[in-house]
């Protein structure tokens, strides 16, 4: 049995062993893989990165805990980016089971903002993120389409008070903030049909810049809106989130996941190539 035959007929247990070792090691050891960033994610990052301190970004956390694995990384990456750039954030959670999860996410991000961090060569000092000054969490209201329409007139129509019961007029950062006109852009993170409402009732009527964060399977359906410029950016699935983390130089959950994926895929590809090299070389030897 020469080496080529062996390459072709390797015991599959070696495949299993290498795969499980690679998955476990890449999962446990926190090293970084580079992520290739595509245009539709880059444009979201660039848009937020070039905003001036004090401008407002509207982040709509419109997913349930069951889509958390794919969409939470996006939420963390975008919101931390906003806070580090001293932008203000308005957050809504228009999915019924979402508000508690969204609040927890805001608190977690606030905690990590307490630390000094260096991103892309710039040192950002840790600071305390204050409710009402750095962000306003409006919470949940039913009939999302009506809420999106109502906010086009005034945020105070669907949300007279924020999630904690404070009237919007008493919130410092909401002073003079009437509707989408005072917002730099809207980032909608969603796993369902709320996205369609943001496009048709929100962007379609009030013409604010809109970016989407979606689950992997939904991604392909929304590329046409990118072409028609109804949305200025799109992140889909874990890979989309990993691209944002890459741009922000802030590796998180998505890049952890992608690290395992990239290497697990490489292991499988390696074995496929090995089998084929063995096959072709073996055939050439036979012809001789």
């Amino acid at each position, binding site marked *: 049995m020469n080496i080529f035959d062996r390459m072709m007929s*390797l015991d*599959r247990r070696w495949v299993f062993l290498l795969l499980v070792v690679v998955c476990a090691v890449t999962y446990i050891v926190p090293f970084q893989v*580079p992520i290739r960033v595509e245009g539709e994610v880059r444009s979201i990052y660039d848009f937020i990165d070039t905003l001036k301190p004090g401008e407002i970004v509207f982040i709509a956390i419109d997913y349930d805990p069951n889509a958390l694995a794919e969409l939470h990384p996006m939420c963390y990456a975008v919101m931390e980016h906003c806070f580090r750039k001293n932008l203000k954030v308005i957050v809504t959670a228009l999915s019924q089971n979402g508000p508690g999860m969204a609040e927890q996410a805001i608190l977690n991000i606030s905690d990590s903002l307490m630390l000094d961090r260096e991103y892309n060569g710039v040192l950002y000092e840790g600071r305390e993120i204050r409710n009402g000054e750095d962000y306003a969490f409006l919470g949940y209201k039913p009939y999302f389409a009506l809420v999106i329409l109502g906010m086009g007139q005034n945020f105070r129509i669907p949300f007279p008070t924020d999630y904690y019961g404070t009237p919007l007029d008493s919130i410092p950062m909401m002073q003079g903030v009437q509707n989408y006109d005072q917002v730099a852009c809207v980032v909608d993170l969603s796993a369902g049909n709320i996205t369609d409402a943001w496009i048709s009732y929100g962007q379609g009527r009030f013409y604010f810049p809109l970016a989407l964060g979606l689950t992997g399977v939904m991604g*392909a359906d929304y590329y046409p809106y990118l072409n028609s410029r109804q949305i200025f950016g799109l992140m889909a699935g874990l890979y989309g989130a990993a691209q944002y983390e890459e741009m922000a130089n802030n590796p998180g959950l998505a890049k952890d996941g992608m690290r395992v994926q990239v290497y697990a895929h*490489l*292991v499988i590809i390696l*074995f*496929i190539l090995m089998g*084929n090299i063995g*096959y072709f070389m073996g055939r050439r030897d036979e012809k001789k």
Partner: protein
Amino acid sequence: MRRQIPLMLVFIFGIFMIFQYFVPHESSEWIYEFLLDWIYIIGIFALALGIWSLIRVSVAKIKAHKSGWGYPIITLAGLFLMILFGFTGYRDGSWGFYFMTAEGLSNPMFRHFFDYIMIPIQSTMFALLAFFIASAAYRAFRARNIMASLLLVAALVVMLRFNPYLGPIGPVIADTASWLLNVPNLAAKRAIIIGVGLGMVATSLKIILGIERGYLGKG
């Protein structure tokens, strides 16, 4: 008599269900809902047959005393324990023939067996797919002929779609992969679905008309 009545039943209910589809009236909906309810109920009776079969096969293996005859004992033990947990429960201060209470399952052991035995085994069985998808790819993706090569190349392109180490061809691969997943994929799946649809329709019709009767035990 033994074959004619079943064939007649198939014909009558089959034709009824076809007409039912075109009649939106309430009465037609009621009958439709009744029929579906019936099928669920019959299914539970069948499950009793299934459990009987499982017990009989296990007992036969134990009796035969061939190698591994001990394992069916574990099956039977698991079966009877779980049936016991499933049919008895604690509610309002006493044990009885209960299942659910307002707070959930009335027997905590039923829940524990589900959470700590069924769930880990089930998810690990599912996770075996990660290994098998790798070994199947290694074993079967050989460029033996045109068809196998197409299969291999398409799979490789899609698997490389987010690989960061490809340099300038990376974006090309990513675009090709998303094109493959959106365009030829759609065409092929649609062709298969139309074929499957026609096959299903034809088979259903053959069943209703009594042409296909393999399921009654005769070809």
